[in-house]
């Protein structure tokens, strides 16, 4: 039981909007069905999540732990960059990722006309 919105309105907002990693496309001209739009919304979401999680993993497990020896040349206040990432830097990145994701998703919701 899907609440079908006014297609004309959502279509206009959908026009020419950069979607996730895919280049902006003029789907409006093709008159996508609600279902197709939901599918591309979900795809855009997945690629956004994937990119964010790659950054998440590289910072948390890479810079802070596994690659720390490689970064040991960069010193910060009595220790090295990897230590800083493990104790502070990673948390800053996590915060940035969540807010970036929330902002992008809430924008995608509107662009695809799937917001509440």
């Amino acid at each position, binding site marked *: 039981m899907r609440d079908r919105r006014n297609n004309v309105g959502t279509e206009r907002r959908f026009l020419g909007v950069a979607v996730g990693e895919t280049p902006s496309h003029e789907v409006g001209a093709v008159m996508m069905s609600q279902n197709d739009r939901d599918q591309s919304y979900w795809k855009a979401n997945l690629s956004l999540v994937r990119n964010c*999680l790659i950054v998440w993993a590289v910072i948390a497990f890479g810079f*802070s*732990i596994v690659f720390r020896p490689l970064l040991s040349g960069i010193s910060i206040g*009595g220790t090295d960059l990897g230590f800083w990432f493990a104790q*502070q830097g990673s948390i800053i990145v996590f915060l940035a990722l*969540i807010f970036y994701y*929330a902002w992008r998703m809430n924008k995608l919701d509107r662009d695809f006309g*799937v917001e509440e």
Partner: protein
Amino acid sequence: METQTLIYIVVGATFALYVGIAIWARAGSTGEFYAAGRGVHPVTNGMATAADWMSAASFISMAGLIAFTGYGNSSFLMGWTGGYVLLAMLLAPYLRKFGKYTVPEFIGDRFYSQTARLVAVVCLIIISVTYVIGQMTGVGVTFARFLQVDTSTGLFIGSAVVFVYAVLGGMKGITYTQVAQYVVLITAYTIPAIFISLNLTGNPVPPLGLFSEHTASGQPLLQRLDEVIVGLGFAQYTTLNTSMFNMVLFTLALMIGTAGLPHVIIRFFTVPKVADARWSAGWALVFIAILYFTAPSVGAMARLNIVDTIQIGEVGSPEGNLAYENRPDWFQTWETTGLLRFEDKNNDGRIQYYNDGNAAFAAQAQEWGWAGNELTVNPDILVLANPEIANLPGWVIALVAAGGLAAALSTAAGLLLAISSAISHDVLKSAVMPTISEKGELMAARISMAGAIVLATWLGLNPPGFAAQTVALAFGLAASSIFPVLMMGIFSKRINNLGAIAGMLTGILSTCLYIFTYLGWFFIPGTNMIANTPENWLFGIAPASFGVVGAILNFAVAYGVSRATAAPPKEIQDLVESVRIPRGAGGAVAH
């Protein structure tokens, strides 16, 4: 005014505040009891989630564990914040869209199976009870210090307080009370840290102080700390002294566990919209990060302060160690609780604190007439003792006691709520007694809270580790059971009822088995089958890190079983589709 009197006043005042708010916002209907009527603003919800989340483990225990291990325990910092990234992207918005009260409810509906729901309830109870044991350890430590009694007595008093507190209000009471608790606990945590950072480095911002110059020696603080503790035979603070493999696994287990904790997930059911669920996770992490940026500074600085208090002169010279009769007040205060112990092994009336496990250094120490390390410090006292060690004024000490209690109480209450709602809502109302009245359901919820407290208190008398370590086990259990099925339930339409049930059972049973093998059956001391030492661990995986393996097994089994059996029916696949799209969530709002 005397410190002890100040502690009574400050703790009493904060308690009056919480109880006042709880009464003001007393829960009426079951909807309010469980999910605060879904009318909570994202920032408010974020702050309450932060208080709910930051428990005795974060507040009381974590900085101590970092202090005594150093870099290797950065896992706690990354694990307990990085999980929010997973939560915000993989679970929170979709579960809010689904719009029910409890995690087992989602699992039961998505996997169209009452059995799946009951298995989820069992997982939830195992996770939450383990978690509450960790809280009880923290409550015990705090009350022991606060009332100057031994830890067991502290534990009994603490659990009585938790009982009265959690049973009184429901979620609504808890949400607003938790905002107050957040303010108390964050103030209590940061104020002493600011003073200490100023003392040691001249920098009033603790996270910056950590990487600044140590004023007394002119060296960078961390370098100074490394030198001082290596001079006493300890391992360097800034290097990894355990296995890198385990550090990666442990960090990941804490992250996945964070995203699989039922009492955290239900917070995202209380925001008005799906978009708010996304923001809410970010706001929660902002409020959490304030404590997590401060904790490593507290750890490093407290470690340096402790060593400097005991080792007053040159290492090895007879006058270099503090005479026991000159020990500071905080030392005596904590001796009463049994959490700080001194044993004069060489009968020289002075305190020798060094690493006697380091053979080369121990041999050297013997030449100085040292007969072994004489000071045992329970890491769980570090944060509470911190302001006393740094000679801060009495009101700061009082504030920290109140903060520790706020942290432990808020989380214990949130967990008890998750346990009681699972039992009354998911077991009684849906399976055993569908006709139960709202009043009866609330009564059942309260009785199950009481039962959980009694069990956790009994197990808390001999906890399987320090507060944060016990809590870490709960994360491993959540990682292995709840997180994988929730994620698969949203991201795959192919996972069916049998797959989910088999996956959850494999995850939780394998992880429980691994943990109990090393830590004792149901954490009862002495019942472990293999000694808990790194040489004995399977592939070198620590029990607290095993949650990752459990999660992988869970994913694999669920996938395999689902492939081999029939696909979920059409309406379930449609349900998954609808959960992925925010549109229409408004319909689920119950007010």
